Structures are given as C-alpha cells and as structure tokens.
C-alpha cells in the first residue's frame, strides 16, 4: 500500500478501479477475462508482440539510415525486448493464471521489471526502465489499436489517473462513469480542479510522478478532502474509507435538509449566495443548494473540444437553458476568458506566446476579434429578453478596455434594434476585478459599470506573481496575503462609494475560512461553487455582522499571510469547533 500526498482540490472520498491515462492517453479498459477467453488473450498478445517487433525493426532501419547505427541501436534493443523470453513468459503466466487481459498483463509485467531496474544504483540501468515503458506503449498501441475510444465510452465507473487533464479530454467525459480524478501535475485552479468541482467529485492534483506505480484496473482510493491518493490499499484502509464515505453521504443528506434556511447572519444580515457554473447542466446544482442565482457563468466551456467557434445560436441556447432552470433568478454571464493556448483547434489561434498568462487572452483577445466578441454579446443580449441576465467582462486592466467593451455592446444593441429583435435595453454591465491595475483604479471603474465581481483566483495570482497552477508555489499563492486583503478592501470601498454592487468569486469566496473576513470587509454577495454553498451558509448563520467586522479589521492589521490564516482559523473555531481546515 502506498499513500501519496497531493493538493486537495475537490472534496469527498472515492474508491474505485483505476483508469490510467499516461502522457499519450493510453488506457487499460478491463482487468480480467472469463476462462474461455484466455487463449484468445494469449493470441492477441503474441500478435501485438510480433507487430511491435516488426515496427521496432522498421524504425531501426529508418533511424540507422537517417542518423546512423548509434541511433538505430535503441530500436534494435526494443526489438530484442519484444522477443524476450522473460517478458513473454511473465505475460503468458499472468494471462493464464490470473485471467488478466493482455493489456493488463503487459502493464503488470512491465511494471514489475521496471521496478527492479529502477531500484538499481547504476544510472545506466535505471534509465533502461524508460525503454521498457516505450516497449509497453508500443505493445499497448497494437493491442488497443484504434479502440482509442473516447472517454465517453467507459463501460464501468472508474477513478481517472493521469499526468494532467486537458479541456478537450474531459469535454467528452461521461460524468456518470467517473468517481474521482488524481493527477501528477496541476494546482488549485487547474482545469482538473474546475471540472472536478463542476462534477462534484473528489480530486487530488500535483501528486508528482506516480503513474508508473499503478496499472489500469487496480483499486485505488482518492481522498479529495485531505489530498491523498492511496494505491493498493490494505483491507483496514479500505474499511476506514468506506465508513468515511458513508458518513459523508449522511452529511450530504443533512445539507439537503438545511437547504432552505436563508443565508442570514445571527444578527439579521442577509447575504446573497450565488453559484458558479461552467455548463448549463450545473444550474441544477445551484437549485439543489438553494442558491440565489448564478453569479458566474464561465462561458469558455462552450469553446472546448471543438474545431470551430460556437455559433450565436449555440450561445443563445446555452444561456436560455440556464434561464429556464432558474426562472427569475439572476444569471451573470462572463464573456470568453481564455487564452488561445488552451484551445488550439480554433480558427483564431495566436502564435506561440512566451507568457500566455500575460498575453493575448480573454478580453484582450475579444477586443482584437470583434466578430468573435460580438457573436457572444449578441447572444447574451438576445437571451436578456428571457430573464435576468447580466454581462461581465474578464481580465479588465484599464478603463479604456471597459469603454471599448461598452462601445461594442452599444453597436450590437443598435444592430438588434434594427433587426427588430428583443433584448433588455438596461442590461446590467459589470466587470471582473482580478488584475491589480483594475483594483487600484477601481474608484474610476466604479463610475463606468453597474457592478464588480472580484475574481480572487486571478487577483491572488497576479498580485503575488505566483502561477496558481504551480504546485511549488502553493505556499506563496494564498488569499490570506495582506496585499490581497488590502486590494479587496479598496475595491469594496470603491464600489460602496459609487453605490454599485460588488460580489466575490473564486476559491476564496467558497472557503469558509474567509467568510467572516469578506463579510466584515463589506461584501454582501458571494459567488461560490455549488458544492461549497452549504458550508459557507453555515458560517454565515453562525456569525454576526459585528463580529465579522471585528475580524476583518483585525485581519487587515496583520502583516503576514500566515498570521492571517492562523487568526482566521482561530476565529472560525470559536463559532464552529468541529471545523475541518
């Protein structure tokens, strides 16, 4: 049994069969075959082996021709490995005695040999394990062939283990078939984290290399609350986690019971809690948690996993679907917030940037690409005739950008008017405050928009110059930092002065650790991942505005992030003694 520690990004417990996606996306679909299929599996294996050996020899000839025998030699070695009596013997044995599928047997056999090699002290020999994995890939390629099935064709639910998960991979996922995610890379706001939260399943990221330790079909445990991945769990551990899982399901029913209690402090202050969504279907999660509406609809997922831009009608359909579910509640739509680097298949790719996060992305991309931007704005305006829609612009850094956006919006409104299409002429227009420059001039910006939304994920990232996806910087990247707190206070004050609404979204808003602090600084609207709504509501109901203000004012005086975090924990424990950090 091995217990690996990573970054917890979506809480909950899952136990299940592993589906391993390595860097090339191979997966082992099944672990065992019935007795009568064993001979077939042996044949499949031998055939794949022969094909692979031919491949390797062909590559050897090619490489030798092009680059010389030194390079060809590696592939000659692979051809030897592919005809190695020990490898063949081991796989045959596993298939016959364990009734493993050819893929699983190959994976297990290679793993066994690789582990011995990796345990040797001589560098040369440990590196040979890479050759073994290469050979494994080749064999698996022949076994799985074009059965490179999309993840939506999973036969049974699995725990997905991968190096990392890309938007296009998860786009075709069948949510009902995934228990949890665990990845080698990734950080708190990585794509995996977002998807796991959207699907409300446990996830742990940033585990470092571990895929070589596990084979597809192995039983694994993902603890998304503590940030653990357990490989090959022993029976006592399995029991412990099954019990934990039961307790969690009980708690979930209790949340359901508290669902209809209002998010009101003990001294009567009503706080608005919105939900964040990526897909229209998540509007249901918001309803299930009695949210007051959708405070952040991340629309970039309309663009994921496609070769062409979504049409205006596709936008419109998605927005009205959300409205239909939510009735009268507000839906705040954030326009495309993504870099071209994420969705390479689109017609408007930008040449490779050295620094995509500081580059042509998000609102900048939209302002340089009026057709793209106007399509979305038009759909939003059309949808505004059917419910309480509000529009919000991401990554705004200057007043000039807001003015340009409003100009384009005015143009689109004119067009719609000419076409005789209905829309809300008073469509509320807001901006995300997530770039430090915007926070610093928020007093100016407050005069130009109807509302702010403080994007804490990016605000923390840009303020501390720390990549939120970098697991090495996990300690630096924290919303507790005094610089971040001061900026938030500045933005809230600017909003109050102009009497415009301000909400907070991002991880910080869903983390019960910060609820009193944010309320005390003046925030009255939180937009939160639906999964986190019950906990935030609980803290609100247990606290008072007076207390929250005291907490905020004290926290703003503290000088280090650590002091702030410790102080907030202490304050939370006073009202919620059993709080888990």
């Amino acid at each position, binding site marked *: 049994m091995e217990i690996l520690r990573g970054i917890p990004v979506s809480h909950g417990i899952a136990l299940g069969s592993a589906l391993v996606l390595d860097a090339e996306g191979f997966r082992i679909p099944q672990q065992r075959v019935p007795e009568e299929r064993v001979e077939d599996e042996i044949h499949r294996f031998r055939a794949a082996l022969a094909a692979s050996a031919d491949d390797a020899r062909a590559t050897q000839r090619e490489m030798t021709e092009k680059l010389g025998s030194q390079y060809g030699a590696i592939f000659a*070695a692979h051809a030897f490995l592919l005809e190695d*009596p*020990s490898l063949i013997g081991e796989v045959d044995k596993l298939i016959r005695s364990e009734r493993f599928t050819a893929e699983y047997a190959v994976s297990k056999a290679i793993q066994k040999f690789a582990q011995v090699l990796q345990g*040797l002290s001589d560098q040369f*020999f440990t590196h*040979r394990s890479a050759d073994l994995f290469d050979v494994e890939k080749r064999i698996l390629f022949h076994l799985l062939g074009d059965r490179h099935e999309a993840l939506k064709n999973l036969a049974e639910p699995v725990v997905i283990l991968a190096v990392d998960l890309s938007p296009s991979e998860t786009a075709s996922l069948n949510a009902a078939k995934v228990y949890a995610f665990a990845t080698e890379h990734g950080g708190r706001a990585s794509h995996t984290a977002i998807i796991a939260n959207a699907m409300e399943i446990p996830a742990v990221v940033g585990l470092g290399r571990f895929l070589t330790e596990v084979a597809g079909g192995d039983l694994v445990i993902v603890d998304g609350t503590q940030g653990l991945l357990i490989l090959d769990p022993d029976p006592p551990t399995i029991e412990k986690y099954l019990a934990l899982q039961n307790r969690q399901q009980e708690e979930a029913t209790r949340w359901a019971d508290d669902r209809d209690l209002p998010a009101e402090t003990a001294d009567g202050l009503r706080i608005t809690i919105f939900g964040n969504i990526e897909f229209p279907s998540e509007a249901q999660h918001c309803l299930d948690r009695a949210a007051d509406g959708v405070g952040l609809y991340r629309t970039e997922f309309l663009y994921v996993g496609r070769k062409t831009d979504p049409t205006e009608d596709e936008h419109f359909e998605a927005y009205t679907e959300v409205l239909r579910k939510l009735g009268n509640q507000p839906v705040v739509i954030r326009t495309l917030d993504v870099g071209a680097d994420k969705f390479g298949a689109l017609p408007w790719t930008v040449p490779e940037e050295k620094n995509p996060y500081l580059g042509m992305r998000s609102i900048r991309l939209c302002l340089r690409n009026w057709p793209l931007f106007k399509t979305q704005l038009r759909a939003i305006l059309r949808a505004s005739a059917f419910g309480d829609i509000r529009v919000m612009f991401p990554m705004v850094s200057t007043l000039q950008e807001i003015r340009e956006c409003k100009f384009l919006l005015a143009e689109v409104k004119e067009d719609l008017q000419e076409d005789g299409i209905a829309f809300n002429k008073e469509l509320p227009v807001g901006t995300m405050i997530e770039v430090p420059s915007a926070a610093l001039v928020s007093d100016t910006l407050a005069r130009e928009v109807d509302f702010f939304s403080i994007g804490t994920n990016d605000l923390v990232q840009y303020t501390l110059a720390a990549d939120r996806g970098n697991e090495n910087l996990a300690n630096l990247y924290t919303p507790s930092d005094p610089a971040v707190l001061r900026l938030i206070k500045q933005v809230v004050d600017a909003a109050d002065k102009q009497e415009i609404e301000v909400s907070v979204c991002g991880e910080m808003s869903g983390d019960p650790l910060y609820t009193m602090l944010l309320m005390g600084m003046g925030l009255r609207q939180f937009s939160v991942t639906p999964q986190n709504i019950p906990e935030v509501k609980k803290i609100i109901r247990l606290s008072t505005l007076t207390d929250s203000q005291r907490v905020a004012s004290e926290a703003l005086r503290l000088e280090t992030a650590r002091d702030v975090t410790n102080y907030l924990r202490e304050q939370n424990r006073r009202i919620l003694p059993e709080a888990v950090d």
Partner: protein
Amino acid sequence: MGDPHRTDAAVLHRGTVIIVNPNGLHMRPAMEFVRIAQQFAATVTVKRGSDAVNGKSLIELMMLAAEPGTELTVEVAGDDAGSALPELIAVLATPSYDD
C-alpha cells in the same frame, strides 16, 4: 528470475569472465550476447554471485546490472554448447564497443 539450467542435459560448459568494458554490461554487448545465445539450442545461464539469469533474455541480463569489474559465470548446456561458450565469453570480455 528463472533459472533454466538443466542438470539432465548433455555436457555442461562453464566459463568465467570479468567485465572490463568501462560501461559495464550495457546495451550493445548485452544485445550482442543475447543475439548469439539465441542462435544456439543450448540453454545459457549467466551467474553473478548467487543470481542466475536466462542468458537469452535481455531484460534479465539488464537486471543483473553488471558494472565494470563484475565477475560473471556463463554456463551453457546442450549439444552445441561447446561452440557457443567461447563466442559468448568473447562478447562479455570485449573491452569496448563503438558507441
């Protein structure tokens, strides 16, 4: 690791050699060894101390991890064992390969 050494076979030929190649028993000589070994019907066992591996298996030879200075014993058993042994020893004894 298996030990295919058959005690009921015909003649057993044995020889020892010290690895002098500065890279140890790395890929090129190992591959060459296996290539030759596979040409013979005789069984080939390579021993390092108490470890014994199948000389026709590249993986097993790699797992021996024989660095320079290691003493290996090659045992060949079977009808063509006599001609196999000297060739196999020669591969292991080679001081260097063009790498």
